[in-house]
């Protein structure tokens, strides 16, 4: 088995389930503490974005999350029914002073994702948005006891 799929209603309480799953997965794969926290945060941000901006908080619409281990990469795909591609800041540092005039200072999530992961890809198709991010395992220090699989093959989660 090389992938795990989770489907949650569009409510923030269920985002915690996905985040906890990411923690279990990272520990199983032997991520070190810092990279585990990176994975948890990036997953949290992508799922939060899907809940709020994709599915507009409509609890009856599901957010799909798929963790896929392939070759030397852990991919996380987050799917919502918004059909709108998020606008990536492409590394532009947020100006925190700009937030001071804002009653609801948000908009940091995609910036954080870009800082934490090794790559991002988006596509919109048939009313769905797929947001995929990945961690290159060769750049991810092991901190635990997970077995290292051979390069170029699918590995087991």
């Amino acid at each position, binding site marked *: 088995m090389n992938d795990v799929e989770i489907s949650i209603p569009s409510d923030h309480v269920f985002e915690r389930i996905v985040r906890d799953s990411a923690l279990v997965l990272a520990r199983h794969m032997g991520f070190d503490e810092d990279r585990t926290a990176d994975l948890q945060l990036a997953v949290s941000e992508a799922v*939060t974005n899907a809940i709020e901006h994709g599915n507009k908080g409509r609890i009856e619409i599901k957010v799909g999350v798929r963790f896929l281990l392939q070759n030397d990469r852990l991919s996380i795909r987050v799917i919502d029914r918004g059909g709108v591609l998020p606008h990536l800041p492409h590394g532009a540092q947020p100006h925190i002073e700009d937030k*001071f005039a804002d009653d609801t*200072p948000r908009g940091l999530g995609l910036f954080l994702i870009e*800082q934490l992961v090794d790559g991002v890809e988006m596509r919109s198709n048939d009313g769905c948005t797929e947001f995929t991010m990945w961690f290159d395992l060769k750049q991810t220090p092991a901190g635990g006891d997970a077995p290292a699989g051979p390069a170029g093959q699918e590995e087991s989660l």
Partner: protein
Amino acid sequence: MSILIEQLGSLTIVRILTDSVDALSAKEIEAAAGQLRDRTALDFGKVLFINSAGISALLKLVIEARKQGKKLYALNVTAHHRKVFEMVDMLRYMPLTTLEDLQAAAT
């Protein structure tokens, strides 16, 4: 209850009791804006996770402190949370310190 407010002389300590500073706990953390004193320190000692919704709640405290001309500090921040705060330039407005340093500065 996500926060506990303590007064140590002229210093206010806002102890964050939840392990997740996120969309679910944001409202209670934002409520600390009504408790700001001249010097207020947020204690992150029990916090295991912070995301951008949580950072947004913290930003509201930063904004309120600036409006009121008060100083805000962060205590017991993990290495990863420090990394994230640095990414969004938060520490410029909520510097890291220790309780000992704050108490020493008050004497």
